[in-house]
């Protein structure tokens, strides 16, 4: 019998949270042992050691990071950093999601073409692979130059990072049906089109979802990186550049932004995972999250 995906999820979430707590304890522990002096009301603690990365500048206190989230994003602003980051994350997510969908469609299309034509596969797959060796930081400014609309440029970059894992996985996925399943379809005189839609596509779904989970996080990285050269002001990419420039005066803001980026990636990943569980629920063995 298959494992039930529902069973044991509280345990999983518990382990996840416990580990997160452990990281926070270790974080502050390092600061206790080797960080900057702790000053409270009427007391100070001088850490015995000096650990270079444990200073308040490089590793701000956890509560300072959370405190910064509640504080105004800029002096005199009505908007808190948290509100600003949620807005920026949604903005970046929208870019990433458009690129993600476009990349998935392109990836599936390319894989379908390659699976049906050995010639196309031999001709193009090496270039598809080569395309991914181009550093995205080199490509992003070029695309921003080439495309008038900076938003379109960001979407293109997110697409560029998404289509690759989808293409590679889907080539395998579309080839995954048992040879006897293909013979069965032949014995029913099924057309190529029917074989594609009724056998190859459904059989490839587990592979598709594995690729989409990789692509979800990649598309967000692509969107964040792409925002820089395109001078887009409203997303997480710009926030990172700005808070990087202000790092000396307020390192917590950059840390908070990094956490926002990570959360956005995790949430996008989680959405795909949820779609996967729904789409593959009838197949017996539900694949693991990663």
């Amino acid at each position, binding site marked *: 019998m298959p494992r039930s995906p529902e069973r044991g999820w509280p345990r999983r979430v518990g382990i996840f949270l416990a580990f997160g707590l452990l990281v926070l304890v270790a974080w502050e522990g390092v600061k206790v042992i080797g960080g900057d002096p702790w000053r409270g009301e009427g007391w100070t603690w001088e850490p015995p050691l000096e650990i270079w990365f444990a200073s308040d500048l490089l590793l701000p206190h956890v509560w300072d990071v959370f405190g910064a989230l509640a504080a105004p994003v800029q002096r005199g602003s009505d908007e808190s950093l948290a509100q600003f980051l949620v807005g920026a994350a949604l903005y970046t997510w929208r870019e990433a999601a458009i690129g993600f969908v476009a990349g998935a469609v392109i990836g599936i299309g390319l894989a379908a073409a390659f699976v049906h034509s050995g010639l196309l596969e031999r001709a193009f797959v090496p270039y598809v692979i080569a395309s991914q060796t181009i550093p995205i930081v080199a490509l992003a400014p070029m695309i921003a130059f080439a495309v008038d609309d900076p938003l379109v440029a960001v979407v293109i970059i997110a697409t560029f990072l998404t289509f690759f894992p989808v293409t590679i996985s889907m080539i395998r996925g579309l080839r995954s049906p048992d040879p006897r399943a293909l013979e069965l379809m032949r014995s029913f*005189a099924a057309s190529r089109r029917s074989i594609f839609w009724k056998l190859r596509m459904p059989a490839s779904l587990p592979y598709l979802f594995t690729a989409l989970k990789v692509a979800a996080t990649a598309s967000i990285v692509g969107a964040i990186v792409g925002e820089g050269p395109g001078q887009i002001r409203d997303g997480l990419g710009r926030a990172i550049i700005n808070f990087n420039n202000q790092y000396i005066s307020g390192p917590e803001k950059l840390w908070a932004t990094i956490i926002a980026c990570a959360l956005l990636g995790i949430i996008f990943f989680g959405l795909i995972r949820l779609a996967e569980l729904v789409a593959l629920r009838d*197949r017996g063995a539900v694949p693991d999250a990663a």
Partner: protein
Amino acid sequence: MRHEEGPLTGSPAAVVRIVGVDKQFVTDRRAVTTALSGIDLEIGRGEFVSLIGPSGCGKSTLLRLIGDLTSPTSGSIEVNGKPAHNARLGREYGMVFQAPVLFDWRSVEENVRLPLELLGMSRSEREARAHEMLALVELGDFAGHHPYQLSGGMQQRVAIARALALQPAILLMDEPFGALDEMTRERMNSEVLRIWQQTGTTIVFVTHSIPEAVFLSTRVVVMSARPGRITRLVDVPLPHPRNEETREDPRYFRVVTEVREALRAGGGLGGEPQMASEERVAAEGGIG
């Protein structure tokens, strides 16, 4: 060596007519293997014919040739009076493999409906036919289940229902119960006989089990290996319906013995080295 050879006289009731078929595979750039040599066989409407022989005798290849899943190097195969290729395009086959090959994203009923969708049958007709087929294999209560929820025997029954959904002229079964335990296998044998009698479908059945072949068939085709050829056709004069008592009938044992001896004579059970070298010469002659 061959006990019944030469083309059999054509009868209008023949569903399968195989004349002078050879099948060679190119295994490497140069090497050619003769899988089947000089096959002549005629199968009448409503017959239940088993192909039996040692591994490598080409019995599965012969089945796949009948089903137009591969083509002969020479010779002709007609099904229902037309070339096998046309018969396949005319959807006159049902195919059952050793593994059920069910689509795990489809429910039991949706699996049975698959060939009907490919045919372009209307939704209501599809549903009616699928229910009818599931009732035939006695899985009516499992229509909404998914394949992983069924036992191996039940999955194979779904595969049979799917194969019969188009009401094919001929059902091709390639060691369909080879992966099942003995108890389930015997139950499935009775089941398939019941279905055969109920539907009147012609069945060609590949097996390496002598008792299974004799219990099921009206005729057993005994084959030998290297190259694969038909060495003997054994009629099974056992009455229908067959049941557990059939397996204890002296006539049943007589036929089992006859098939076993035919297999031994063909080199199927142990075999004689002399035979093997003779076969090899024949194979080489066949290639040239």
